[in-house]
Each structure stands twice: as C-alpha cells, then as structure tokens.
C-alpha cells in the first residue's frame, strides 16, 4: 500500500512539474504534439503506479525523456518557423469572404456540420456573414465576422470614454492581508486600518474581499458569519 502511495506521489508531482514546464497553453489548448505528449504521459504514469513489479524508473525515465524532448522541440519551434510548421502544422482558412473553402475543408476532414456548429457558437448564423474563419493548430475555429456584422465600438461612434478600465488589485483575500499588494499600491497599514474602520470592521480577518483600482475605487465585501 505504501509503495502505491509513494509511487503515486512521485509520479503525480513529476507530471505536475512537467505540465508547468510545458506552460499554460498545455492545459487549455493542445496542439497535436502536445496532445500526444499528454496522452502518453498519463498512460505511462499509471503503469508503475498500479503494477509494483515494474520498477518506478520504468515510468519515470520515459516521462522525463518525453518532457525533455518536448521542451527541446518547443525551443526549436520558437527558433525555426519551418520546424514549427512541420511539428504544429499551419492554420487553415475555411471561410474566406463568405465563401467556404471546400478543398481546405476536405483536407482537414472538417464537416459542414462542425463548421456550422462552431459558427453558431461564435454567434453567427450565416456563412455569408463571415469574413474569415480560420482553423487554428489547436483545432479551435477563429471566426472574424464581416465589418458590417461586427458590433459598434465607442470609437466608431465617436463616444468619448472616461478612462481605460483599470486592473483592481486584491488587498485582502478571504481574511488574508496581501502585504505585497498593499505596498505595490503605495498604501500602508494605517491607510488600511482607516479603510477598515470606515467600514466598521476591526481586522482584515473580517473581510472577504478588498480590492483597490488605479482610480482609487475600493471594492469591499465583508465576510459572512459562518
């Protein structure tokens, strides 16, 4: 039992480190090489986890090898466009100025039903409304509607805007004071005490969320009684 536990922990952390090294894209959007890697790693990890007759290294070595090769390939892809094209493929235009590119559809084995489904997902009901639909390497369809079908922006309407939206910084997160964020905002603990006092709160522990944006606006949510 303890062997299974230890092996599982080792393999789990190894894969977690590997996935972190692969970057954030690994989790959301998988390109062909990344999908292969993910499938192989998950499969490799389960074998020594369950079968104690197989040395742990028999699972660890292939995982490390795969991760290293994958890192190497991504570095090479960064440096060489030709290599990237070879490994990841190239995005394909499926709709150009309202016209479905049937040859590209056939080449990518993309059915009309799939295309229409993706367009509906993008809020477009007619192919004629699409300027470009591009099948990305990750398999996602990027849809660019015709200019006449795009929503109006304040800029196009000539509406003056007050100011760009600013990013609120979290100062208290579920009762925990984030001192580094407070410092980054140029505030100190006496300012915070004054803010809390004005909201009838004596300690950060009583606050669920407190944020401050660049305009100086506060968002205060007190903690509910448990």
């Amino acid at each position, binding site marked *: 039992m303890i062997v299974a536990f230890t092996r599982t922990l080792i393999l789990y952390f190894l894969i977690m480190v590997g996935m972190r090294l692969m970057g954030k894209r690994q989790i959301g959007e998988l390109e062909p090489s990344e999908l292969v890697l993910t499938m192989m790693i998950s499969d490799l990890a389960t074998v020594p986890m369950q079968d104690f007759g197989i*040395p742990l290294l028999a699972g660890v*070595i292939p995982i490390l090898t795969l991760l290293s090769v994958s890192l190497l390939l991504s*570095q090479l892809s960064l440096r060489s466009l030709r290599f990237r094209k070879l490994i990841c493929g190239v995005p394909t235009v499926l709709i150009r100025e309202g016209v479905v590119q049937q040859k590209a559809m056939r080449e990518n084995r993309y059915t009309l039903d799939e295309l229409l489904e993706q367009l509906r997902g993008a809020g477009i009901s007619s192919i004629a409304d699409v300027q470009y639909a591009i099948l990305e390497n990750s398999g996602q369809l990027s849809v660019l509607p015709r200019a006449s079908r795009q929503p109006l922006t304040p800029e196009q309407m000539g509406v003056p805007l007050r100011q760009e939206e600013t990013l609120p910084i979290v100062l208290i997160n579920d009762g925990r004071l984030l001192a580094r964020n407070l410092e980054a905002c140029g505030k100190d603990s006496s300012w915070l005490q004054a803010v809390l006092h004005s909201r009838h709160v004596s300690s950060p522990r009583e606050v669920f969320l407190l944020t401050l944006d660049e305009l100086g606006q506060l968002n205060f949510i007190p903690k509910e009684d448990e």
Partner: protein
Amino acid sequence: MMKAYLPALSTLTLILLLSLWVEHQMDRDAQLWQAELHTAQEECMQEAWPDVRAHLDHVHQSWTAQERFLRVFYPHNILDEANTLFAQAKVFADIEAQSEALSQLSALQEQLHTLRDMERLTLENIL
C-alpha cells in the same frame, strides 16, 4: 541561445548516460555470474559438490549484493524468478542431485542471459 536548450539536453544526456551505465554494469556482472555458474555446472558434472556449493554461494552473494540496484532497473518478476532458481539450485546441490542441479544451473544461466540481454541496445530489443 544554447541556454534555452540546456535543461532538456542535459536531462536527455543524463538519461542516456544512466542507460549506458546500467547496460555496462549488468553486462559485466552477468558475464561474471554466468562464467562462475558455468564452472559450477562443470563441477556438477564431475560431482565435485563442495566446489559446486562454493561457487553457487559466491554467485548468490554477489547477486544479493546487487539486488537493490537490479530492482531499480529491472522488472521484479524476472528477479524473483532468478531468486527462486538460485534457491532451488542450492537445494539440489545440497542433496547432490546431479541432473536436477544441472537443469537448475542452466535455467539460472538462461535467466541471467535474459536479464543481460534486456538492457542491450539491439535492434531485436527495440523492435
């Protein structure tokens, strides 16, 4: 520029070196064990039982000393089978049963050959 490749390249190099080292170690050890078992086999044919037992004990001791290393790299069932063969060969040598001891010794040699062969970088192994 090379810095970016360094972690991946060094991991791969390390794995390659480790694999080569394991192959070398196993090749060397198994060769010694097989040679000694072969001698034991010849002594067995001449019914020189004290010598058979001495050689068998020596190989077994050397094998036991290496067992932790072997368990890190080799499937445990093959090692367990070898352990069983060692035990049986020793029993047959103790009771001086020639044909059984000979058969166990040759099975043991075959098992060591399998172990030695497993880590060899050959086309047969890769395929």
